[in-house]
């Protein structure tokens, strides 16, 4: 079971790194969003510093969506899904492996690079650290909520936009607590730990529900 899990994670990581994979695309999109917003809002550094954490979080949500629509779709197209479905290993474990691989290629790099992008938005070092910490804890929730949508739309040719419509409402609580934790760290009326712990709890719940719901959806639709 562990071997199948690791094999699937490694396969997805390799696929993401090679030609046609979406490995670096999420990051480039993330950078693009962060770079475009100052053009829209004007280069006022005080304003950017104030909305910076929210902006980074919002960009992270959108960047997560980029790779999601291909999460199961490529497997449906090349037939790998039949092997995954008929494997001895429980489908839930394999869905977890796909989610972990997706998180390793989008969520984690986003969180690690967020401090760098924070420089563009004139964040203070404390705020950068807080945003990175909340993203590390919060992006698994985004990935696994998104995995449900990806599984539901896996066999639809035109699932990309539908996926965004289905999962964005479910991502709202994660976004709220991620941003409020990041803002609390930079000086607010509430302690940092309260929203941060709720964010961690949301992540854990999303991982559990996401794995089982995505596996159920795959069994039904693929």
């Amino acid at each position, binding site marked *: 079971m562990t071997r199948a899990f690791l094999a699937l994670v490694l396969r997805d990581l390799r696929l993401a790194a090679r030609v046609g994979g979406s490995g670096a695309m999420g990051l480039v999109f993330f950078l693009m969003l962060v770079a475009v917003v100052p053009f829209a809002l004007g280069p006022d550094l005080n304003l950017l510093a104030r909305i910076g954490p929210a902006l980074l979080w919002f960009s992270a949500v959108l960047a997560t969506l980029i790779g999601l629509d291909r999460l199961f779709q490529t497997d449906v197209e090349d037939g790998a899904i039949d092997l995954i479905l008929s494997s001895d290993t429980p489908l839930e474990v394999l869905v977890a492996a796909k989610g972990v691989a997706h998180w390793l290629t989008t969520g984690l790099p986003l969180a690690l690079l967020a401090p760098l992008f924070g420089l563009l938005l004139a964040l203070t070092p404390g705020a950068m650290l807080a945003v990175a910490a909340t993203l590390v804890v919060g992006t698994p929730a985004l990935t696994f909520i998104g995995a*449900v*949508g990806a599984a*539901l*739309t896996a066999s*639809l040719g*035109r*699932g990309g936009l*539908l996926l965004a*419509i*289905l999962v*964005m*409402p*479910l991502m*709202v*609580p994660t976004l709220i607590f991620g941003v409020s934790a990041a803002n609390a760290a930079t000086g607010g009326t509430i302690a940092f730990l309260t929203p941060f712990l709720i964010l961690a709890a949301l992540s854990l*719940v999303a991982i559990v*529900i996401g794995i089982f*719901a995505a596996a*159920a*959806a795959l069994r*039904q*639709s693929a």
Partner: protein
Amino acid sequence: MPRLSSLWNLANPTRFLGLADRLLPWLAALAAALLAVGLYLSFFVAPPDYQQGETVRIMFIHVPAAWLGLFMYVMMSASALGTLVWRHPLADVAQKAAAPIGAAFTFVCLVTGSLWGKPMWGTWWVWDARLTSVLVLFLMYLGIMALWRAVDDPGRAARAVAVLTLVGVVNIPIIKFSVDWWSTLHQPAAVFRIDGPTIHPSMLWPLLVMALAFTVLAVALHVAGMRNEILRRRVRSLWLMEAERLDAGAETAAGAAR
């Protein structure tokens, strides 16, 4: 198991259609009568509020619409379980018919709330916990309706929507308790409380009549929607059969020509 078997008897769409045809006129008439009584009570009998004045009457539509918006989602989740667990043939029909009705009630709730908010709070919209979570409910209804339209085969669409509905059900308790967990602008519950309603009987009665009227209206619309969906599926299968027949005819013609 007499009771169980009666539920399974309804699984026969023809029997359901017969029952629906007999029930619908009564349900529609009852809904119309209750709505007439409820609207009369809330616009002419109930007193204006000592603080809010006449705008309090918006509440008689706003609150039942909010209840029904939640209720239809719970109904949809129960049907989703029926689809996934028991494979009840009418469960996915019930699920599909409920989505637009629930979305409409949620929309009415949002619009009337915003009309009330302008004179009372001084703004059409605030990003308060209750308002935001109801907006998320509305977006989820739209997503579910979009997923229904995206999958061609009704059976597969039903199972996909069922999974999505059950995932989205976590939002329902958040909406219900949002006013207690985050004490922001929206009022806390006034009717269903452990220590009894805090609303004066002169306003409680019109509200309850309106709630009953909205519920009967929702049931009537839902039965009608289910009937239409069954008929729509029959038309679809007739079309498929006709297409197959034409296809087979064309093939034999082509074979004869060869």
